[in-house]
Protein backbone atom coordinates (compact mmCIF):
# COMPACT_ATOMS: atom_id res chain seq x y z
CA UNK A 1 0.00 0.00 0.00
CA UNK A 2 1.58 3.29 -1.11
CA UNK A 3 0.46 6.91 -1.08
CA UNK A 4 -1.28 7.68 -4.36
CA UNK A 5 -2.40 4.10 -5.04
CA UNK A 6 -5.83 4.18 -6.65
CA UNK A 7 -8.56 1.79 -5.58
CA UNK A 8 -10.93 0.29 -8.16
CA UNK A 9 -13.80 2.76 -8.62
CA UNK A 10 -17.52 2.13 -8.41
CA UNK A 11 -20.45 3.56 -10.38
CA UNK A 12 -23.94 3.15 -8.96
CA UNK A 13 -27.28 4.07 -10.48
CA UNK A 14 -29.22 5.02 -7.36
CA UNK A 15 -32.91 4.42 -8.09
CA UNK A 16 -36.13 5.07 -6.20
CA UNK A 17 -36.32 1.32 -5.60
CA UNK A 18 -32.93 1.37 -3.91
CA UNK A 19 -34.01 4.29 -1.70
CA UNK A 20 -37.04 2.32 -0.55
CA UNK A 21 -34.91 -0.74 0.16
CA UNK A 22 -32.35 1.35 2.03
CA UNK A 23 -35.08 3.11 4.02
CA UNK A 24 -36.37 -0.25 5.21
CA UNK A 25 -32.92 -1.70 5.89
CA UNK A 26 -31.64 1.36 7.76
CA UNK A 27 -34.98 2.23 9.42
CA UNK A 28 -34.65 5.80 8.14
CA UNK A 29 -38.14 6.61 6.87
CA UNK A 30 -37.72 10.37 6.41
CA UNK A 31 -40.20 11.12 3.56
CA UNK A 32 -37.72 13.37 1.70
CA UNK A 33 -36.19 10.05 0.56
CA UNK A 34 -39.33 8.53 -0.99
CA UNK A 35 -42.17 11.06 -1.20
CA UNK A 36 -41.81 13.53 -4.09
CA UNK A 37 -44.75 15.65 -2.91
CA UNK A 38 -43.20 16.06 0.54
CA UNK A 39 -39.68 16.66 -0.81
CA UNK A 40 -40.78 19.47 -3.11
CA UNK A 41 -42.96 21.02 -0.40
CA UNK A 42 -39.88 21.44 1.82
CA UNK A 43 -37.96 23.09 -1.01
CA UNK A 44 -35.97 20.20 -2.50
CA UNK A 45 -35.84 19.75 -6.29
CA UNK A 46 -37.12 16.17 -5.91
CA UNK A 47 -36.66 13.07 -3.78
CA UNK A 48 -33.04 12.88 -2.58
CA UNK A 49 -30.92 9.89 -1.59
CA UNK A 50 -30.13 9.25 2.07
CA UNK A 51 -26.73 10.80 2.76
CA UNK A 52 -26.01 7.66 4.74
CA UNK A 53 -26.68 5.55 1.62
CA UNK A 54 -24.16 7.58 -0.37
CA UNK A 55 -21.74 7.17 2.54
CA UNK A 56 -22.32 3.41 2.60
CA UNK A 57 -21.71 3.12 -1.17
CA UNK A 58 -18.46 5.04 -0.76
CA UNK A 59 -17.53 2.60 1.99
CA UNK A 60 -17.97 -0.26 -0.47
CA UNK A 61 -15.08 1.07 -2.55
CA UNK A 62 -12.87 0.66 0.51
CA UNK A 63 -14.24 -2.67 1.77
CA UNK A 64 -14.33 -4.27 -1.71
CA UNK A 65 -10.63 -3.47 -1.95
CA UNK A 66 -9.77 -4.65 1.56
CA UNK A 67 -11.82 -7.84 1.40
CA UNK A 68 -12.23 -7.79 5.20
CA UNK A 69 -14.49 -4.85 6.19
CA UNK A 70 -13.35 -5.32 9.80
CA UNK A 71 -10.10 -3.61 8.82
CA UNK A 72 -11.96 -0.28 8.56
CA UNK A 73 -11.24 1.43 11.89
CA UNK A 74 -12.65 4.85 11.03
CA UNK A 75 -14.94 6.17 8.33
CA UNK A 76 -16.33 9.69 8.17
CA UNK A 77 -17.88 12.06 5.62
CA UNK A 78 -19.46 15.48 5.31
CA UNK A 79 -22.72 15.70 3.41
CA UNK A 80 -22.17 18.63 1.08
CA UNK A 81 -24.74 18.26 -1.74
CA UNK A 82 -27.85 16.15 -2.19
CA UNK A 83 -28.12 13.34 -4.73
CA UNK A 84 -31.41 14.02 -6.51
CA UNK A 85 -33.10 10.80 -7.64
CA UNK A 86 -35.56 11.03 -10.56
CA UNK A 87 -38.60 8.77 -10.94
CA UNK A 88 -37.22 6.67 -13.79
CA UNK A 89 -35.44 3.35 -14.33
CA UNK A 90 -31.96 4.82 -14.63
CA UNK A 91 -31.92 6.76 -11.36
CA UNK A 92 -29.04 9.03 -10.35
CA UNK A 93 -25.55 8.04 -11.44
CA UNK A 94 -23.06 8.42 -8.58
CA UNK A 95 -19.41 7.72 -9.30
CA UNK A 96 -16.95 6.83 -6.56
CA UNK A 97 -13.17 6.88 -6.70
CA UNK A 98 -10.62 6.48 -3.92
CA UNK A 99 -6.90 6.54 -3.34
CA UNK A 100 -4.41 6.04 -0.55
CA UNK A 101 -3.84 9.46 1.03
CA UNK A 102 -1.42 8.59 3.82
CA UNK A 103 0.43 5.53 5.14
CA UNK A 104 1.11 5.81 8.86
CA UNK A 105 3.79 4.32 11.10
CA UNK A 106 1.17 2.68 13.31
CA UNK A 107 0.19 0.22 10.57
CA UNK A 108 -2.84 2.15 9.37
CA UNK A 109 -3.51 4.08 6.19
CA UNK A 110 -5.93 6.87 5.27
CA UNK A 111 -8.06 6.32 2.19
CA UNK A 112 -9.59 9.40 0.55
CA UNK A 113 -12.93 8.76 -1.17
CA UNK A 114 -14.56 10.98 -3.79
CA UNK A 115 -18.25 10.77 -4.71
CA UNK A 116 -19.52 12.64 -7.77
CA UNK A 117 -23.04 13.20 -9.00
CA UNK A 118 -23.89 15.41 -11.94
CA UNK A 119 -20.23 16.43 -12.23
CA UNK A 120 -19.95 17.70 -8.66
CA UNK A 121 -18.76 16.16 -5.40
CA UNK A 122 -21.53 15.23 -2.95
CA UNK A 123 -19.35 14.13 -0.02
CA UNK A 124 -16.69 16.28 1.61
CA UNK A 125 -13.64 15.02 3.48
CA UNK A 126 -14.72 11.42 2.96
CA UNK A 127 -11.94 9.47 4.63
CA UNK A 128 -11.46 5.97 5.94
CA UNK A 129 -8.67 4.82 8.21
CA UNK A 130 -7.85 1.17 7.61
CA UNK A 131 -5.46 -1.37 9.04
CA UNK A 132 -2.95 -1.85 6.24
Amino acid at each position, binding site marked *: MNVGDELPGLSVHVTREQLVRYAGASLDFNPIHWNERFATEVGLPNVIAHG*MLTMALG*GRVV*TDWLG*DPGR*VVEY*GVRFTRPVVVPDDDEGALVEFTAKVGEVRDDGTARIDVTAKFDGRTVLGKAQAVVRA
Partner: protein
Amino acid sequence: MPLDPSFVGRTYPPETTYEVGRAKIAEFADAIGDDNPLYRDIEAAKGAGYADVIAPPTFLTIINIRAINAVAEDPDLGLDYDRMVHGDQKFVHHRPACAGDRLQVTVHIDDVFVRAGNDFLSVHADVATDGGQPVCTTYAQLVVRGERS
Protein backbone atom coordinates in the same frame (compact mmCIF):
# COMPACT_ATOMS: atom_id res chain seq x y z
CA MET B 1 -35.19 29.94 18.62
CA PRO B 2 -31.43 29.54 19.20
CA LEU B 3 -30.23 26.34 20.85
CA ASP B 4 -29.42 26.57 24.55
CA PRO B 5 -25.61 26.39 25.06
CA SER B 6 -26.08 25.07 28.60
CA PHE B 7 -26.84 21.71 26.97
CA VAL B 8 -23.14 21.20 26.11
CA GLY B 9 -21.86 18.25 28.15
CA ARG B 10 -25.28 16.71 28.63
CA THR B 11 -25.49 12.91 28.37
CA TYR B 12 -28.48 10.84 27.29
CA PRO B 13 -28.28 7.27 28.66
CA PRO B 14 -29.38 4.24 26.61
CA GLU B 15 -33.12 3.81 26.25
CA THR B 16 -33.11 0.30 24.78
CA THR B 17 -30.87 -2.62 23.89
CA TYR B 18 -30.57 -3.52 20.19
CA GLU B 19 -29.63 -7.08 19.28
CA VAL B 20 -27.76 -7.28 15.98
CA GLY B 21 -29.32 -10.00 13.81
CA ARG B 22 -27.79 -11.98 10.94
CA ALA B 23 -30.85 -11.33 8.77
CA LYS B 24 -30.71 -7.57 9.43
CA ILE B 25 -27.02 -7.45 8.46
CA ALA B 26 -27.80 -9.34 5.23
CA GLU B 27 -30.76 -7.04 4.50
CA PHE B 28 -28.60 -3.95 5.03
CA ALA B 29 -25.81 -5.37 2.85
CA ASP B 30 -28.38 -6.13 0.11
CA ALA B 31 -29.69 -2.56 0.31
CA ILE B 32 -26.23 -1.14 -0.37
CA GLY B 33 -25.54 -3.76 -3.06
CA ASP B 34 -22.66 -5.31 -1.12
CA ASP B 35 -22.04 -9.05 -1.60
CA ASN B 36 -19.11 -9.38 0.85
CA PRO B 37 -19.21 -12.94 2.29
CA LEU B 38 -18.22 -11.76 5.78
CA TYR B 39 -21.70 -10.17 6.04
CA ARG B 40 -23.51 -13.45 5.28
CA ASP B 41 -21.34 -16.54 5.61
CA ILE B 42 -20.76 -17.56 9.25
CA GLU B 43 -17.93 -19.93 8.38
CA ALA B 44 -16.15 -17.24 6.34
CA ALA B 45 -16.54 -14.78 9.23
CA LYS B 46 -15.21 -17.30 11.75
CA GLY B 47 -12.34 -18.08 9.40
CA ALA B 48 -11.47 -14.37 9.42
CA GLY B 49 -11.37 -14.41 13.22
CA TYR B 50 -14.82 -13.05 14.06
CA ALA B 51 -17.40 -14.51 16.46
CA ASP B 52 -20.16 -14.33 13.85
CA VAL B 53 -21.00 -12.45 10.63
CA ILE B 54 -19.88 -8.83 10.87
CA ALA B 55 -21.79 -5.67 9.98
CA PRO B 56 -20.82 -3.13 7.27
CA PRO B 57 -18.95 -0.03 8.51
CA THR B 58 -22.08 2.17 8.45
CA PHE B 59 -24.58 -0.44 9.72
CA LEU B 60 -24.78 1.13 13.18
CA THR B 61 -26.59 4.07 11.59
CA ILE B 62 -29.68 1.98 12.42
CA ILE B 63 -29.29 2.68 16.14
CA ASN B 64 -27.19 5.83 15.86
CA ILE B 65 -29.79 7.95 14.06
CA ARG B 66 -32.56 6.75 16.35
CA ALA B 67 -30.51 7.73 19.43
CA ILE B 68 -29.53 11.11 17.96
CA ASN B 69 -33.13 11.82 16.98
CA ALA B 70 -34.23 11.14 20.56
CA VAL B 71 -31.85 13.92 21.62
CA ALA B 72 -32.94 16.21 18.80
CA GLU B 73 -36.56 15.76 19.86
CA ASP B 74 -35.82 16.66 23.50
CA PRO B 75 -38.34 19.49 23.95
CA ASP B 76 -36.05 21.25 26.43
CA LEU B 77 -33.36 21.59 23.75
CA GLY B 78 -35.71 23.59 21.53
CA LEU B 79 -34.38 22.31 18.21
CA ASP B 80 -36.60 22.72 15.14
CA TYR B 81 -36.52 19.06 14.14
CA ASP B 82 -38.33 19.65 10.82
CA ARG B 83 -35.50 21.92 9.65
CA MET B 84 -32.69 19.62 10.77
CA VAL B 85 -30.25 18.07 8.31
CA HIS B 86 -27.27 15.77 8.78
CA GLY B 87 -24.05 17.77 8.31
CA ASP B 88 -21.45 15.10 8.86
CA GLN B 89 -21.05 11.62 10.27
CA LYS B 90 -18.10 9.53 11.42
CA PHE B 91 -17.76 6.03 12.85
CA VAL B 92 -14.73 5.00 14.89
CA HIS B 93 -14.80 1.22 15.22
CA HIS B 94 -13.21 -0.39 18.27
CA ARG B 95 -14.15 -3.71 16.68
CA PRO B 96 -16.68 -4.63 13.97
CA ALA B 97 -20.24 -5.06 15.20
CA CYS B 98 -21.19 -8.75 14.96
CA ALA B 99 -24.45 -10.68 14.82
CA GLY B 100 -25.48 -11.47 18.38
CA ASP B 101 -24.13 -8.22 19.84
CA ARG B 102 -26.55 -6.64 22.31
CA LEU B 103 -25.82 -2.93 21.88
CA GLN B 104 -26.66 0.20 23.82
CA VAL B 105 -26.12 3.80 22.75
CA THR B 106 -25.19 6.71 25.02
CA VAL B 107 -25.35 10.13 23.36
CA HIS B 108 -23.31 13.15 24.48
CA ILE B 109 -23.78 16.77 23.38
CA ASP B 110 -20.33 18.15 22.53
CA ASP B 111 -21.12 21.58 21.14
CA VAL B 112 -23.93 23.96 20.30
CA PHE B 113 -23.33 27.09 18.25
CA VAL B 114 -24.81 29.46 15.69
CA ARG B 115 -23.08 30.26 12.42
CA ALA B 116 -24.45 32.25 9.49
CA GLY B 117 -27.96 32.09 10.90
CA ASN B 118 -27.98 28.29 11.27
CA ASP B 119 -27.92 26.31 14.52
CA PHE B 120 -25.27 23.58 14.80
CA LEU B 121 -25.35 20.67 17.21
CA SER B 122 -22.35 18.36 17.58
CA VAL B 123 -22.84 15.03 19.32
CA HIS B 124 -20.96 11.82 19.85
CA ALA B 125 -22.40 8.47 20.82
CA ASP B 126 -20.76 5.54 22.56
CA VAL B 127 -22.03 2.20 21.24
CA ALA B 128 -21.20 -0.61 23.63
CA THR B 129 -22.43 -4.10 24.45
CA ASP B 130 -24.78 -4.51 27.39
CA GLY B 131 -21.74 -5.95 29.16
CA GLY B 132 -19.91 -2.64 28.73
CA GLN B 133 -17.51 -3.61 25.92
CA PRO B 134 -16.93 -0.64 23.57
CA VAL B 135 -17.84 -1.38 19.94
CA CYS B 136 -18.00 1.98 18.16
CA THR B 137 -17.93 5.72 18.81
CA THR B 138 -19.97 7.80 16.37
CA TYR B 139 -19.64 11.54 15.76
CA ALA B 140 -22.27 13.66 14.05
CA GLN B 141 -22.99 17.28 13.32
CA LEU B 142 -26.60 18.30 12.85
CA VAL B 143 -27.58 21.56 11.23
CA VAL B 144 -30.86 23.36 11.74
CA ARG B 145 -31.35 25.61 8.76
CA GLY B 146 -32.23 29.20 9.62
CA GLU B 147 -35.60 30.60 8.58
CA ARG B 148 -34.17 32.35 5.53
CA SER B 149 -31.98 29.56 4.12
